[in-house]
């Protein structure tokens, strides 16, 4: 069993959170409040010392030193612009000054959209379309299970293409989902359901991993019982 007070505190807080699984109780509420408070405090301190202090305060201090000490203008004065935008964002806390925060917000939305417009389109649209279509023409197998075919087919790529196409048909609402369109859309639903099932399976694995991590901590690091 660990003699480290930090391990003990973490173990007791873990048990306090787990106690909610039985029923809501004061111990859980205390642990939850501690978690929320510590998280908020951590992020506040972290953001101050890793963003505001080094990037705003220190840069402006150095820029001011250069300007007033040596008469040299330094491009780091631009951080003042970012600082002003940050202050404008806080104006939303004022009852009558809320509209001021829309300006920095517009700046953020505009720069983000500009930054992402090409990169996102390239990485998550054009490249995906490329990878869905191009392999169809590549080398593949000339067999269907055990039967030889007179031509080569890249089955995996064909499957991906069929899933993409039928899935898109399902979301194409300009045509009534009847007859051919309806049948294709139904196949698309099947692909979507398999996709959601795979995502659910991975989510279960992810959550179980977190539980395993906590159990390993309790029975391993804290109690020293597990391997």
């Amino acid at each position, binding site marked *: 069993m660990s003699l480290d007070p930090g391990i003990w505190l973490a173990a007791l807080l873990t048990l306090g959170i787990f106690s909610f699984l039985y029923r809501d109780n004061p111990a859980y509420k205390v642990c939850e409040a501690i978690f929320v408070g510590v998280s908020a405090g951590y992020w506040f301190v972290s953001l101050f010392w890793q963003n505001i202090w080094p990037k705003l305060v220190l840069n402006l201090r150095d820029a001011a030193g250069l300007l007033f000490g040596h008469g040299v203008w330094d491009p780091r004065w631009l951080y003042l612009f970012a600082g002003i935008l940050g202050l404008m964002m806080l104006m939303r806390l004022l009852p009558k000054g809320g509209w001021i925060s829309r300006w920095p917000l517009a700046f953020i939305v505009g720069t983000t959209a500009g930054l992402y417009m090409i990169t996102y389109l390239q990485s998550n649209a054009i490249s995906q379309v490329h990878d869905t279509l191009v392999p169809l023409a590549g080398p593949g197998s000339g067999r269907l299970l055990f039967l030889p075919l007179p031509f080569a087919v890249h089955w995996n790529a064909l499957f991906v293409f069929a899933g993409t196409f039928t899935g898109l048909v399902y979301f194409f609402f300009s045509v009534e989902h009847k007859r051919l369109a309806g049948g294709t859309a139904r196949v698309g639903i099947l692909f979507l359901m398999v996709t959601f099932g795979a*995502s659910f399976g991975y989510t279960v*694995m992810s959550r179980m991993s977190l539980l395993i991590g906590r159990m390993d901590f309790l*029975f*391993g690091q804290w109690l020293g019982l597990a391997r």
Partner: protein
Amino acid sequence: MSLLDRVLKLDRRWIFLLVALAVTVPLFLRIEQKIEVTPESRGIVRALEALPPGARVLLACDYDPGSAAELQPMTAAFLKYALSRGLRVVVMGLWPQGPMQADLALQEALAHPAVAALAPRYGVDYINLGFQSGNEIVIQRMGSSVPAAFPRDARGRPIEEFPIMSGVRDFGAFGYVFSISAGYPGTVEWVQFAGDRFHAAIGSGTTAVSAPLYYTYFPRQVTGVLGGMKGAAEFETLTGFAGKGTAFMLSQSFAHIVVVLFVVAGNAAFFLARRRRAATPPEVTP
């Protein structure tokens, strides 16, 4: 009360208890589970194998303790493998706690006999550049100047002091970029900016929740994907550095069996109850 009614009215705390047992009991068992390796994991090892000793790899630890159960085994295994092969590892993080997690993994890796035998030195064979705020903008900046994005290491010393950073200008200095990612910023941003824009070779280690999203990048935009704890176990199997990823897979399997059984039982009970309701004649009110 029939069995069907019992199943339908089962207190969910019994499920919690069974899942807890399924996860905990295997931690005490000494059963080895065979790990099937997927092409997505093999792709990462192949890319690393192709690098000559002395090549630099960039390890981006973009996660926090909340995802450590899944991602820490990956980080540790990656560091053990890379350092034991004589690769030079540059660690950084776009999440504040990422480099701290990397430090823990480095301690574990440096204590491994295969790594300790080579006695890697800080600043020469590996370095931790720490956290830099700015999310994807940091990656963008690294594409033109790594020293501008990371002028100092995690301990606050200028990076010019370290031989490992000598001649590092942009992503061209790195033979491989491995993004261990728990969300934003993470693998998506590394693929978009470092991979597709600056043509860096990228590998992704990610939480299982994110894995289905990142598989779409394989094999052209990323050379491989390690999805969750299973991905870590696969990497450990391939590299021979068995660690917690492999050890925890038995718990993972037991838990999945319990979940699948309850999904089947729940569905069976639902359909049986629906059939029973349909067979029951409606009450006629006078």
